[in-house]
Each structure stands twice: as C-alpha cells, then as structure tokens.
C-alpha cells in the first residue's frame, strides 16, 4: 500500500514536471522559431519581406529535444555514478546540455540567415546576443524538468531503462507533443496575425509574415510573449497528461488481472479522449458554422 501511495505521489510530481517542461519547450521553440512555422521565417526574405525574427531551427523539435535531454540525462547519470548528489548532477547535466543547445542555436541562426544573403537579409548580431540566452533559459527549464522526471521514473518507480535512455525517449516525446500542439498557434495566429481570424492562411499569402510591432520591428521576444498565452500552456497540458496518465495507469492498475488492468484502463482513457475530441470538433462546427462569401454574410 505504501508503495502505491508513493507511486501516486511520484506520478503527480512527474506529471507536474512534464507540464512545466512542455510549456517551456514550446515557448523556447516559438521564440527561436524552431518548429514548422520556421519555414515561413525562412521563406519571408525570399519573397522580399526582410525581418528581425530569430531563426535557429537546428532540426525538428523531437530530435533536437531528444539530443539535449539525452545529453542532460547522460551527464547527470555519469555524475551520479561518481556519487554526486542527484539534484546537483541533474542541474549540472542540464547546464551542459543547454550550452550545447546555445551553440546549435548560434550556428543555426548564422547559417540559416547567411544563406539568405542574396535576398538582402542581414545577420543581426544583437538578435544573437539578446535572444540566444532567452532560448537557453527556456531550454534549461525544459531539459531540467524532463531529466528530473526521468530520474524519478528510473530511481523511484524502477523503470528498467537507464536514465540516458529515458532522457532520449521522453525528450523525443516532449518535442513531438510540443511541436504538435504549439506550432499552429505560433504559425497561424502570431506570424499571420494580419490574416483573417478563424480561417487558415491562404497559400498565396505564404511568406508575408507580420514584421512590425506597436513600435518598431517585431522581435521574437514578442512572439514568446504572445504564445505563452495559449500554445505554451496547451503544450504543457498535452505533455503533462501523456506522462501522468501513462504512469498513473501503470502504477495503479498493473497488478490487476495479471497486467491486463493497465491495458484496459489505457483503452478506456483512449475512448474518453476520443469522445472529448468528437465533442470539440462538433462544438467548432456548430459554433462557427460554414464559411460564407462576403456578399452573402453582409
């Protein structure tokens, strides 16, 4: 019984850490333009729209976060093998992973922007100076929370995978959840704020991203400010739910029916999410209604 209570506590803590990690991951990727919306940041100068948006896409978010979390988890694991305090080891591992992230960001920005030189897009040194530390800070939060969560799974919940392997698995899942949930909000709602609300961006408008703010040119910090209103927390909820429910169904129901309990609960959870999704879809259709032409609606 005590073990189950401890397991539930650890599950809740891991879910909370995952929520913070998801929110920080998405905000980091939006400030750095790491995910799929980066295609528009890259495209804009080619269409004649020179901008000051940070453009540091190193790779897709999942492999990038897989790499950074496995570096953090690997260094932390190595330090723990030589009897470092786990908290200190996880912090040091995350710091080293963040420096790797910073190096990738800098080379990513310089490489990507330099490739746009023939379209007259300048390399802004002040963007590297001011925004790289901001993305590093967010990445630190994401990596630290993920590695701490993996440490709890390995040491307290006794998952068979070693800490670095857990870092890789959950780093990739973190990037997948964050990019899936957060990208449309950043790509459509922020980059194409000049387009109509409640409709997709027409393909003919590709590249015409918003480049000016209330005063002066828009900075990627403004994008981070905007996306933390929805995309960050939503990504956090997404990743937090994945981690929490995956652990919860295993901790509480693994013993039932020779292991089939956790599977049955998993299927029930999938059905519940399916029903909620169908409700969301129907709510959208009912509330917004079909698109009408301007003459018909006026």
């Amino acid at each position, binding site marked *: 019984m005590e073990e189950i209570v401890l397991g539930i506590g650890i599950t809740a803590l891991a879910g909370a850490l995952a929520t913070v990690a998801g929110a920080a991951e998405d905000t980091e990727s939006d400030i750095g333009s790491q*995910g*799929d*919306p*980066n*295609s*528009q940041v890259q495209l804009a100068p080619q269409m004649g729209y020179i901008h000051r948006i940070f453009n540091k896409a190193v790779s*897709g978010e*999942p*492999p990038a976060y897989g790499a950074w979390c496995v570096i953090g988890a690997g260094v932390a694991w190595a330090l723990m093998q030589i009897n470092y305090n786990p908290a200190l080891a996880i912090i040091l591992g995350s710091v080293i992973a963040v420096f790797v992230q910073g190096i990738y960001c800098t080379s990513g920005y310089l490489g990507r922007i330099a490739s746009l030189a023939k379209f007259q897009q300048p390399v802004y040194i002040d963007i590297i100076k001011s925004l790289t530390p901001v993305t590093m800070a967010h990445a630190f939060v994401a990596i630290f929370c993920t590695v701490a969560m993996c440490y709890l799974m390995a040491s307290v919940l006794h998952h*068979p*995978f*070693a800490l670095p*392997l857990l870092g890789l*698995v*959950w780093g*990739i*899942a973190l*990037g*997948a*959840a964050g*990019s899936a*949930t957060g*990208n*449309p*909000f950043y*790509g*459509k*709602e922020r*980059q194409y704020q000049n387009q109509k*609300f*409640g*409709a*997709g*961006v*027409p393909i003919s408008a*590709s590249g015409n991203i918003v480049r000016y703010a209330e005063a002066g040119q828009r900075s990627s910090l403004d994008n981070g400010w905007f996306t933390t209103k929805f*995309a960050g927390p*939503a*990504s956090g909820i*997404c990743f937090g739910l*994945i981690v929490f429910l*995956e652990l919860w169904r*295993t901790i509480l129901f*693994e013993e039932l029916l*020779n*292991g*089939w309990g*956790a*599977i049955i609960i*998993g299927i029930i959870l999938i059905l519940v*999410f*399916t029903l*909620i*999704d*169908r409700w*969301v*879809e129907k709510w*959208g259709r009912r509330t917004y209604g*079909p*698109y009408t032409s301007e003459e018909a609606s006026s």
Partner: protein
Amino acid sequence: MSALGGKASGGEGINPTGTVVGIIILLVSIAATYALGFSIVPLIGIIIGGALIGFGVHFVPVGGAPAAMGQAPGIATGVAMLAAGAGLAGLFGGAWAYEATGDFIVAIAGGAVGGGLMMAITCLMVNATYVFAMGIPAASGKVAKDPITGDTFPEYKSQGTEGHGLPFVSFFGGVVGGFIAGLGGTIIYLELFDVYLANLPALMNGATTESIQPLAVSLAGIFAIGFFLVNAVLAAYNITGTIEGPHDPKFKRVPRAVIGCAVASAFCGLISMLIIYNTGM
C-alpha cells in the same frame, strides 16, 4: 497536390525490380543470421515489428509546415518525428510491463496502448488549439465527407487552403497509427532483449544473467529506438510530405512501405545480432 501547388512526386505502384532486390536482401539477411548460429525467430519478430511501424506511420495524420499555418489538415510536425514520439511512449510502457509481468502478450499490448494514448492526447490538444484558440473548424481537403461520422467538409474549408485541423477520421487514424507503431516497436525491443539476455553472459566470460540485465535492456532499448527511426523515416519518404490518415489517397502506397521496412528491418536486425556474435576470441 502538395500545399505549395506542386504535383505529388512518387508513383503509387510497386516497383517489381526493387521489390525483387529487396526480397533477396531480406532472404540473405535471414540466411546469414541462420548461418551464424542464431535462431531466426527473433529476426522474424524484428521484421514483423519493422513492417508494423512502417504500416502504422501511414495512419498518422501529419500536416508538416502547411498545417502550422492552417493551410492543410493534420498535425503540424514531421511524419517520422511524430510517429517516433508515439512509438517511443509505447515502448516505455511495453518495456515496463515486461519487467513487471514477464508476459510477452501483455507487454506488446501495453506498448500498443501507450502509443495510442499518446496520440489520442496529442490529437485532442491539436483540435482544441484549432477550435478554441484559432476559431478554425476541422475540414479535410482530400475527401468531401468524413467516412466515419459523415460530416461534410467543403463548406467548412476556408478559402485558399487545403483544409485544416483534424477531422474525426484523422483523429482515428492517429490513434490507430500510434497503436500499431507502439506494438511494432515493443515487439522489436522484446525480441532483441531476449536475444541479448541469452547471449551476452557467454560473451562476457560467464557473467550472471542478473548482472547482464541492465546492459541487455539498454542495448535493446537503443536498438529499438534506432529501428523506430529507420522505419519511420522510410515510411515518411514513401508518404512524401503530408498525409491526412487512412482516407488519404496516399494511403494506397502502404504496401511499398511495408516491403521497404521489412527489408530494412531484416538487414538492421542482422547487424543488431552481429554485435553479440561470439567469435571465440
């Protein structure tokens, strides 16, 4: 048509020459495994697992960059990446269930449900973002009517786009894709784990099975992740960009991916067994 107006590249059919060459590679890999003294049953399991991953990836609705602008339906990330994320979440659950119960069937079912659950939550949050934050209803660009719910799409598709969001059939495809990818990945992991656990002690001068277990788990885990990425990337090449799910015409290309993934898995499976080949040195 892709979102940027170009024609979809790559044919729909199966290339006979390529298929014959692939099957020869597959048979040679199996024969080589047998000739080296390994049982071929784990390799068959790995081939089935790899083919399942390739098959499952085609169900996952992936919109890539156009989806991030609400220009095309699907989840706004890459095919390989999303499938790997779901499959690895499944692998996490499957490995844990095997540790706790030691039952092969429970473990692969646990892996499948883990992948399906990850995709269900992700797809729900995608739709919640589109509907509640962006005010955009779900609409498919490939079919006029949802094959499952019967919802019609043309009037809900905004002008100048190929559709947006995740219609119910795409949500269903995502969950099924995560389920199959998690199943395939867990089969590969368990087959490799058993092979390593049986062969590593002899290779390490008679170390006990208990002491070798962490090494076997880690090796099998790393290789399983590698298999995931190999098969997911192969399937992504077959898809060429974006796919809406099982109702998408591109889904017809799936036999090609299954053959390709089986061949790649057979060869990679041979390599993954060679590392524990006892040369007697």
